[in-house]
């Protein structure tokens, strides 16, 4: 069987996952306590107002009917209206998703670019002071929530030192680059607006670092642990006997086989960042979807909940797919097997 068959099967399954997710979240959204109409109409709404809105939202009909309405809307490309922002959910998503995606992307980058090398360093100098330092510091990274990091970093770099901006994605004076994609990176670079991009990077430092620290720490620890595990394998001794340099052994012969757990967990961590970013977003006034997601869940904003979860689910599915690919790339045995399964 061809690998492409496996890929196609995997994609089809992902679509199935999204469908399952939509049903599940549709139900979850409806069991979350609270009456969406009541919450939407605000504090002082009267009962008749609430009844009217409930009817308008088909809330008095059976669940499957509601789902049918929803699916019908979805097929027309209509996510419905958010009760929270009173705008079309699609517009909310368009406005908010790129910012978070961008933040998460850079955080993920930091996780890999900083965390994995730290893990390697710790594993190579196992039980030396470097290792102990990395392990202790990474623990500190893990036990401190992103939200607290955000505040601490803000206090240090913005409040005390005053070297980095605190809020938003761009300085107020700066004209936002044309909103082709909604991400500053792409928009600014497409427009050749380097100044905006650099300003954006300055704004990005604090949020992305706070968001990624736990992941960096996790990456370092996972990498270290599996590297140490792999270090004891005979093939590492064999590579050493062939005179392969220690650095090459560490960076190639040990790293690749030891990356499977790291890639798996880190990939999921990365996908989860999208949802976990909300407190960081609210500290740095980052106009993102994570905060929106939390708010809509708390406000039982049915349409928005389903839409946000579906976006996050899509992201998860894509990441998951990438993890599978990557794990297959890392271990040919898995890849061979994936194909046999597809057969």
């Amino acid at each position, binding site marked *: *069987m*061809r*690998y*492409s068959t496996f890929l196609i099967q995997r994609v089809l399954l992902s679509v199935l996952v999204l469908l399952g997710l939509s049903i599940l979240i549709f139900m979850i959204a409806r069991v979350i306590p609270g009456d969406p109409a009541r919450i939407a109409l605000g504090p002082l709404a009267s009962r008749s107002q609430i009844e009217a809105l409930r009817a308008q939202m088909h809330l008095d009909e059976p669940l499957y009917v509601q789902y049918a309405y929803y699916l019908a809307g979805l097929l027309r490309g209509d996510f419905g209206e958010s009760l929270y922002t009173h705008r079309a959910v699609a517009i909310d998503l368009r406005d908010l998703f790129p910012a978070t995606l961008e933040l998460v992307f850079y955080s993920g980058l930091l996780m890999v670019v900083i965390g994995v090398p730290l893990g390697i360093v710790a594993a190579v100098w196992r039980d030396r002071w470097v290792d102990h330092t990395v392990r202790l510091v990474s623990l500190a990274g893990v036990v401190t929530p992103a939200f607290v990091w955000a505040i601490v970093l803000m206090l240090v770099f913005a409040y005390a030192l005053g070297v980095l901006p605190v809020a938003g994605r761009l300085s107020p004076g700066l004209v936002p680059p044309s909103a082709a994609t909604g991400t500053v990176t792409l928009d600014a670079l497409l427009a050749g607006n380097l100044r905006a991009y650099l300003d954006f990077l300055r704004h990005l430092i604090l949020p992305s670092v706070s968001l990624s620290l736990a992941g960096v720490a996790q990456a370092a620890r996972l990498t270290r642990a599996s590297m140490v595990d792999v270090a004891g394998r*005979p093939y590492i001794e064999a590579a050493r006997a062939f005179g392969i340099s220690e650095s090459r052994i560490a960076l190639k012969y040990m790293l690749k086989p030891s990356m499977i757990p790291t890639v798996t967990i880190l990939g999921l961590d990365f996908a989860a960042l999208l949802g976990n970013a909300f407190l960081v977003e609210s500290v740095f006034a980052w106009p993102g979807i994570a905060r929106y997601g939390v708010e809509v869940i708390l406000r039982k904003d049915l349409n928005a909940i389903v839409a946000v979860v579906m976006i996050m689910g899509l992201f998860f599915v894509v990441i998951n797919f990438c993890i599978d690919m990557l794990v297959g*790339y890392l271990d040919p045995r898995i*890849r*061979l097997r994936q*194909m046999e399964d597809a057969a």
Partner: protein
Amino acid sequence: MSEPLLRVDNLVKHFPIRAGFLMRQVGVVRAVDGVSFSLSPGETFGLVGESGSGKTTLAMTLLGGYRATAGEIWFRGDNIADPVARRRRPALTKEIQVVFQDPGSSLNPRRTVRQTLEVPLRVHRLVSTHGEAARQIARLLETVELPAEFMHAFPAALSGGQKQRVAIARALATEPSFIVLDEPTSALDVSVQGKIIALLLDLQRRLNLTYLFITHDLSLMRNVATRVAVMYLGKLAELADTASLFGNPLHPYTRMLLSAIPVVSEAEERLKPRWVVPRGETPSPARVPPGCSFHPRCPDAFAVCPRIDPVAASADGRHVVRCHLYPGCTPAEVADAART
């Protein structure tokens, strides 16, 4: 001759070959390509052949580790090549056992010898109490000449030979009727090998065990096997009683093999056939040469060899060979065609 314990009928096992990141199938490895033989109870059937000729694949297919691409495997009246039939007979795992070629990877690095050996005992309810298990394991270790303390050791602390002895102990634990010995002593020194082989032969005699014995050590094969099959690129080249094969090797490949046996004394040197210089490269089972697959290396190859694959034939009904040099091996119609 008694009812065969195991009969293999035209067994085929092919592996797909894939390449590139997208792992397209670019060919097929004909690891086992139409093998037939049968084993009577109590015999030691030797299987020799060059590395990569498909011996392990054949063994694994018998054991159910691979699903046969085609062909039948009859064990005590069941065709166990069919996975469904195999599943119906869970006791097969007790009756058919194996000692692998590679002791390093066949022992779980995180389980002690004792834990490893306890599994077959427990699975097949050969022991019931903890103490009984410990005694039985100590006894097993003793039969493979390991001190009982080793039951607490992890494989990493064992030498290659010690690991292999543990693997043998594991195979013996279920008191099987048929054991596949895939180069069981290749990691052992001669002294231990001697003891293990003696032990295996003892057991065979006592328990009427049947062995499928795979080894590269032809001197050893000479001494243990009742019959020997020579395998070349997934097919049997020759199959005969041991004495007959060693005394009167027919197939050129067999002769090549026998002439290369390393021996320890001048007296033995004289027992080997005239030295046949190995020539050419071993073809890959992924690109089997047409006709007789041995022809590129064969010192006696002639016109028909690259064109037609010979069939197995025997002059006396016991010594079977697959080579155009011998009558009956060239398919009749081809032979006729060649004559006219």
